């Protein structure tokens, strides 16, 4: 069951919340929609589900235009952020609710509910009410309900955001495993970049009412099309440093913090994007260009927050524990892994270990 979105837009009165959303989602794909809160990702999911009408554009499921079909005829199922369980029904009846409403034969309902509960390891809780379950178990009931419906498309709206961090990690792999086993086409909305990176086959990044980029996790991380995408993925956040001036094939942030280009760029204003682990911090150097402002110890690595002498704040990760005092001087330098953004914050050049690739167009977002 593939899903195709063609120039989908949504507006409320004169207020445009989504525009020009086009993408093709393959059968059996785990497709994540990511973006900050208020970017319209839940709205997009609800339009695909048929819960809210599409203002403009065409939505196809299995090559059929479904814009005018009510949700139940779109052969899909949905898992909600707060699970949307019925508090007055027990687990078993919650899972079988939609099947009964669709007047499926009782024997069939029974069989499907049983199978679904087994899949999520909840068989022994069938008789319990939702309030007698833990958060993770409730989440599983919601999953079981989606599984039982036997639809091949499943939509999930931030299904893990109400769980604690540890449980979230566990559920991530469970959902991924279920999706693969059942061959579901899954559209997964989240604001959590880690969820998207670890689970999805492909990711759509939404911001400012429109698509910022669509691509595999690797593409999104290594080839972000613009500064927003680069900043949204990866922790700690990528450093986005204004280039002071370009000298021939060199981009200069400050005297010591420079990167080399294979070919010169046209004149203009540029930003240099460097991930914190692609910067080096040297406390032993005689020559320094920054002062330590804060230090976060995370176990296997430490994050240095330093202020360059020109006032720029940078984040640098180093392995292991670091003993350094606040305001201690250090030298911050760059490796040759970086991204160059133009004045409109669109990526124009990716550099990885000496290999440098320019983008074809500055304006156009391309699917890599």
């Amino acid at each position, binding site marked *: 069951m593939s899903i195709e979105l063609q*120039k989908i*837009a949504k*507006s409320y009165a*004169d207020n*445009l919340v989504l*525009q020009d959303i086009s993408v093709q989602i393959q059968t059996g794909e785990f497709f994540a929609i990511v973006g900050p809160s208020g970017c319209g990702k839940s709205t997009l999911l609800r339009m695909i589900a*048929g819960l809210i*009408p*599409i*203002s*403009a*554009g*065409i939505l196809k499921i299995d090559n059929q235009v479904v*814009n*005018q*079909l*009510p949700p139940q005829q779109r052969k899909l199922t949905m898992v909600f952020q707060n699970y949307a369980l019925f508090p007055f029904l027990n687990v078993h009846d919650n899972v079988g609710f939609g099947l009964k409403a669709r007047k499926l034969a009782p024997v069939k309902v029974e069989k499907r509910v049983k199978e679904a509960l087994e899949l999520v390891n909840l068989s022994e809780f069938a008789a319990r009410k939702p309030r007698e379950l833990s958060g993770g178990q409730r989440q599983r009931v919601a999953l079981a309900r989606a599984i039982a419906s036997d639809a091949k498309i499943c939509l999930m709206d931030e299904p893990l955001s109400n769980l604690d961090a540890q449980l979230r990690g566990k559920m991530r792999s469970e959902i991924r495993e279920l999706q693969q086993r059942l061959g579901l086409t899954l559209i997964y909305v989240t604001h959590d970049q880690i969820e998207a990176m670890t689970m999805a086959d492909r990711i759509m990044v939404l911001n*400012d*009412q*429109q698509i910022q980029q669509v691509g595999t996790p690797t593409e999104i991380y290594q080839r972000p099309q613009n*500064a927003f995408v680069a900043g949204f993925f990866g922790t700690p956040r990528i450093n986005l440093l204004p280039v002071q001036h370009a000298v021939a094939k060199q981009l200069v942030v400050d005297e010591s913090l420079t990167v080399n280009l294979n070919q010169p760029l046209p004149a203009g204003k540029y930003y240099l994007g460097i991930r914190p682990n692609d910067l080096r911090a040297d406390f032993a150097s005689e020559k320094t260009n920054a002062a330590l402002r804060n230090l976060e110890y995370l176990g296997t690595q430490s994050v240095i927050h330093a202020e360059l002498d020109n006032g720029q704040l940078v984040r640098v990760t180093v392995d292991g524990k670091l003993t350094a005092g606040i305001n201690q001087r250090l030298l911050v330098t760059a490796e040759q892994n970086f991204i160059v953004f133009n*004045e*409109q*914050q669109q990526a124009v050049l990716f550099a990885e270990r000496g290999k440098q690739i320019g983008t074809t167009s500055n304006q156009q977002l391309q699917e890599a």
Partner: protein
Amino acid sequence: MEQQVTNNSKKLKQLPQNLSSLKTVSYDVNARDKLHAIWFLGPSLLVLAVFVFYPMLRTLYLSLFLTNNLGKPTVFVGLQNYWSLLTSSSYLASLQATFVYVIAVSILTLIFGLLLAQAASFKVKGSNFFRTVFSGTMGVSVSVAAIFWLFMFNPSIGLLDQIASVLHLPVINWLTQPGWAMTAIVISTVWMNLGFTFLIFFGALQTVPVNLYEAAQIEGVSKSYQFFHITLPMISPTVFFVSIITLIESFKSFGLIDLMTAGGPNNATNLLVYRIYQDAFLNGNYGLASTESVILAIIIAIFTFLQFKILEKRVTYQ
């Protein structure tokens, strides 16, 4: 960054035109809903139209007419009915009696309701028994309450006057002396209100966080100070709610008066609703009674409106 934002807002402005050209037909939820609305709302709207909206307009209409004894309007008199009511000393006396009654009942109900709720929260053995007793008058309907209190107030055999004679106090003809009749009606009404009021206040008291009292105790604050500076402010929305409910219900009092005093003695307890009943159904003066109804409705509408304002506030701030 900023530049990008302006770029986008430019795009935003252009887009609505694009939208209309792109617009495809989405399945129409609204058509389905509209049809359902007729079925879901129809019965209620019909009943409200016949028994609330129509009579409201009809009452307004009748209040401008003289009527025959069948209730049919005969002569259009404009605001004459209103004028004659507002200049009639007897009606003004009724109005005054009603306000006295309403205010006395509301204040006493509030005070005793709070007292009962506070007392029922004492941590003593048997507090469940007291709670049950205090809510007891909720199960008493108006006619039963009237019978109970008619007997209490009976001048020769009633308990109150028997006690009075034992104590050599003057015997009061409760229901046949104007001032005392009003007192009797007020006492009976308050007694009847208390069960409901107690339950509401008691419930509200339970919602005050215990740690507020614990903090006060650590500060060494007295019980009465706690009541006025913690309890009352915390349950003030409920107090307001109850006072307005009581006020409105008191304006509509009819049963106790009909059963206990029939508006007497000397019209001392002839409250607004009882007067409407007398003028319309005993005297056949429907036009005048309609005018009285309009005045009653206006008074109650004002208080109900107040109540909504308060309820609305609380619903949104929750």
